[in-house]
């Protein structure tokens, strides 16, 4: 180490503290007796010192407010598109009407009748039939409501995809 000069990489590693303790003491020993390497080290110290200095952040003092304002503007734009697009509402209307028509023509009592053909006990079949007769309209109401909600939920998702939603 003392015989030859220190390489640039070695000096940089020394200043970065990326060397072992043994290597560090060898380098320091060499530096004490070699003015050329000491001069090189001093040059690198100046460079490191300059590189470590923070840049002056000359952003407008209202920078954060401007960013937040742009975010809100884009979000409002997206929300307004989401609210007024007539095509999406037309799709939703057709979807719900179709679901309503479908449910109206389904004979729920018959469905319960088919179920009763399965290997259930006679008492259970009887109870199924009674339930079907009594609550056919209520069932239709819930199924229709469920389908309607499903279609609207799907349309909401489609809106997001359709406009490549603001939140990506």
């Amino acid at each position: 180490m003392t015989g030859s000069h220190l390489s640039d990489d070695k000096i940089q590693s020394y200043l970065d503290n990326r060397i072992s303790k043994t290597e560090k003491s060898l380098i320091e020993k060499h530096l004490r007796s070699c003015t050329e390497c000491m001069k090189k080290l001093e040059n690198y110290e100046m460079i490191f010192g300059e590189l470590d200095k923070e840049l002056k952040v000359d952003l407008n003092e209202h920078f954060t407010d401007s960013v937040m304002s742009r975010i809100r503007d884009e979000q409002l734009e997206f929300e307004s598109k989401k609210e007024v697009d007539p095509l999406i509402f037309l799709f939703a209307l057709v979807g719900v009407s179709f679901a309503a028509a479908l449910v109206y023509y389904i004979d729920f009592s018959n469905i319960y009748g088919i179920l009763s053909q399965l290997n259930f006990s006679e008492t259970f079949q009887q109870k199924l039939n009674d339930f079907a007769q009594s609550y056919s309209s209520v069932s239709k109401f819930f199924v229709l409501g469920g389908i309607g909600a499903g279609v609207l939920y799907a349309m909401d998702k489609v809106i997001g995809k359709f406009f490549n939603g603001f939140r990506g």
Partner: protein
Amino acid sequence: MVKGEIHIKQLIHDINEGRVDLFRDIVEMNKRLVFHVVSRMESNETVREDLCQDIFLKVYKNLNTFKFESKLSSWIAKIAYNTCISHIEKKKIPLFEDNSPEEFTLDDVKLEEREPSQIVEDNNVSELLRTEIERLPVQFKVILTLYHIECMGYEEISGVLELPVGTVSSYVYRARKMLKERLLNSYEKEDVT
């Protein structure tokens, strides 16, 4: 998981749940980092500010895709770097036009290692070094900024710039050596004059 990370995770969760105003904290925490990356790649102050805003808008739009596989700051630095690269490539903006008689594009800056063409009259070494740092190739400048000012390690920088760790380490050493040689070169020229 350290306290800071839990806070960031909660913050991102809340923002994704619709508490948009909390994004202000993300901007405040990272605007210095974004500015550092941008200012190394764009010299025009007005354009710089617009770019910084665009970057934070991108961060907001993509926040729900952040998977916590890296630090949030590294992820934001990556968006900042890529946005600046796209900006430079799209606009074909000449870089360092103040220091050079020719217009330099990104390709020139990446590939060419120019010799100093101007003796800085100011004898101040710090001023001279700042000038020479500005004249470095763009990737070198960004890497040195992330390493020295943002205190990122080689691996973290490698994730930001999508370069192998070995390349990042080699660029750090090469860039500083280049600065030393240019510094000495300027000294010699000044001695002659």
